[in-house]
């Protein structure tokens, strides 16, 4: 009872802090300057976004005067800005208030100012949030607290969408890795591609580079990366005519990469239980082809990872040092190996199922697209099985791709890097030198801009990133320190997966909601 009362006291004080932060004007300014020529070319959708995010438009005139317009539009001729506001002279005396029509040919520059929450205020809010979360959300579900590697957002229409996550399995310096993610939905507008790299978790992220790989492709062709990192051009894709899982027909979820995913719940008695989805294809051309899968992990692997950290407790530092010294060997039957990837099996002429390969891309945040070459198929129809751990994978898309030829990618470094709206030449130089690394902390957001090699050529785009990250051990995890159960995770993982099954089932349904809610992010 007393502890409940104290928890209530804490919530009240923390609530007061949050209200004060909200009221106290802790906001920062992102200023943008636009030339009249660029302003004239902005589509109406972008002008609307500008009006909504920056209510005042400052129009700097060539003679030094300035209009500050609080409501404005660009007229249909695109030669004038019409609005209501105040006109100042070069000495900044007020000349007039009212309605104005300003010819673009007299304008020197347009200025907008977007107010954003201060990074420091956001940090304070997050510290408050972390402390409050102890009392509310994470204490009931500590394994659902958001964690990730760097997340990459790409412009899709007029909004940024999460399209890739880098090196998800690289949780220690010795596990540093290179990751190639397909930007399946991306297309360049004009000569430049903009990507936002965010640190949205309670982590330190160490990024060596983030390069764009642009693969030229013929019109209406696609390009896919196989499991060895080679690129293949595909002139045609065929959808399966049927897809059947344990739940029955699941074809509708796999036909289009639209975020409508096929997934299952974990087994309630053994988290390593497998399941099979059987696909059927017809009218297959007799030439080289490959299976394309768009997929991501569920939060089950994240849960198991965080549970392992929790069992480490205060000794997490010791165990990570052991990993660095390579004293913790990858066991033949480790949890990771048992949980495994998505195995691709094809039925041969005798009716036997042969393993072709396995897709095992880590990360629960962004769907990635993989190609599994299958050589020449014996007949015009084929049955293919996807075998995977139940509840471990979300599949958004499958197709059979006709493969014409391997192709080479053009590597493009970022030509401009901004942090919080300011050019960060140091960050750009670091990201272009793979012997150095950029360290990011929770809440950091970098805008990376890439110059496309030519506007007349169509490209399939991929993002290659390299690095690792370090989870900040949550206070709630320390409470679960248990060397015996930690030993079981390493030495008898099969038993651990059976023991943890009922525990995981209790949180599985709500985990997704908790996970995304606990993301460390500055509002955009």
């Amino acid at each position, binding site marked *: 009872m007393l502890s409940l009362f104290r928890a209530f006291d804490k919530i009240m004080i923390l609530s007061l802090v949050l209200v004060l932060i909200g009221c106290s004007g802790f906001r*920062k300014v992102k200023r943008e300057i636009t030339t009249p020529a660029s302003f004239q070319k902005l589509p109406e959708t972008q002008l609307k976004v500008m009006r909504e995010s920056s209510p005042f438009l400052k129009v700097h005139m060539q003679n030094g005067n300035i209009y500050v317009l609080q409501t404005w539009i660009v007229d249909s001729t695109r030669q004038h800005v019409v609005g209501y506001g105040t006109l100042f002279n*070069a000495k900044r005396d007020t000349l007039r208030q009212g309605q104005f029509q300003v010819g673009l040919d007299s304008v020197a520059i347009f200025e907008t100012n977007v107010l954003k929450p201060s990074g420091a205020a956001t940090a*304070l809010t997050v510290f408050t949030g972390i402390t409050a979360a102890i009392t509310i959300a994470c204490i009931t579900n500590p394994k659902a607290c958001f964690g990730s590697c760097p997340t990459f957002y790409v412009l899709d229409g007029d909004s940024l969408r999460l399209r890739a996550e880098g090196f998800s399995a690289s949780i220690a310096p010795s596990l540093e890795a290179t990751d190639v993610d397909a930007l399946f939905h991306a297309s360049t507008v004009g000569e430049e591609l903009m990507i936002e790299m965010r640190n949205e978790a309670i982590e330190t992220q160490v990024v060596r580079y983030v390069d764009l790989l642009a693969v030229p492709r013929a019109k209406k062709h696609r390009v896919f990366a196989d499991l060895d990192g080679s690129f293949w051009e595909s002139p045609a894709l065929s959808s399966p005519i049927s897809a059947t899982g344990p739940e029955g027909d699941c074809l509708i979820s796999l036909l289009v990469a639209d975020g409508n995913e096929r997934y299952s719940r974990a087994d309630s008695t053994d988290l390593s239980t497998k399941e099979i989805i059987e696909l059927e294809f017809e009218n297959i051309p007799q030439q080289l082809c490959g299976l394309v899968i768009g997929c991501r992990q569920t939060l089950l692997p994240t849960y198991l990872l965080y549970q392992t950290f929790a069992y480490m407790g205060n000794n997490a530092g010791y165990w990570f040092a052991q990993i660095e010294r390579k004293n913790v060997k990858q066991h033949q039957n480790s949890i990771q190996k048992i949980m495994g990837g998505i195995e691709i099996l094809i039925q041969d002429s005798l009716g036997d199922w042969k393993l072709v390969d396995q897709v095992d891309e880590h990360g629960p945040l962004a769907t990635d697209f993989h190609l599994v070459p299958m050589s020449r198929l014996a007949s015009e129809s084929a049955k293919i099985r996807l075998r995977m751990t139940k509840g471990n994978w979300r599949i958004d898309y499958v197709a059979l791709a006709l493969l014409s030829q391997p192709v080479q990618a053009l590597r493009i470094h970022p030509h401009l890097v901004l942090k919080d709206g300011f050019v960060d030449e140091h960050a750009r130089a670091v990201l272009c030198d793979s012997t150095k690394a950029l360290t990011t902390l929770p809440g950091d957001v970098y805008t990376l801009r890439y110059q496309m090699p030519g506007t007349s050529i169509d490209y399939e785009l991929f993002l290659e990133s390299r690095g690792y990250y370090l989870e900040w051990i949550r206070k709630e995890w320390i409470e679960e320190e248990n060397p015996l159960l930690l030993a079981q995770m390493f030495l008898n993982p099969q038993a651990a997966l059976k023991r943890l099954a009922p525990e995981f089932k209790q949180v599985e349904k709500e985990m997704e909601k908790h996970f995304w809610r606990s993301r460390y992010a500055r509002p955009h």
Partner: protein
Amino acid sequence: MQDRIKIHNCVLLLLALFFFSCATTQAPRGWLASSDKTQTDVYGGWFEIKYSSASKVKAPTVGELIAISEDSIFIADQTFHAIARNDIKSARLVIYKSNSEGMGGLVALGTVSTISNGFFLIFTAPMWIIGGSIAAGARSYEPIVDYPKKELSSFMPFARYPQGLPLGIDRSQIKSKPRAL
């Protein structure tokens, strides 16, 4: 009682960290606009220049940033100054008022909120002190841009004339923004 002594010492430590970590500026009281007011402010930011040893001018120059050209920076206090970029050793631009002292108060309050954490105080309180002080210190820097850390050209959007000094303008008439009363 032990917990209360710990908290008392933590708050003293917090205040010390805060005062040492905050950025300083010579902008007169009432000169800088708040971040919200920058949306309608028609003046440049506050600019402070220190000269290189080779320069003939020794005392720092401070005032409103008027414009930046390829080879010069223009500042105004009661008079208009044109300064060669080559003469500048370091410079600080302050775009708006940071309100960091208010944030320091919030950090103190956040630390107080951990009183009831009992045993876990030793984890949570330091997080508030260290993280919170960094947050307050970081806030005081947010409206600040320093040269040579950033290129001088990145200061241009925050000048009174971001497009550059208008042709034919009477420089003798340009004076710094008046202080708000």
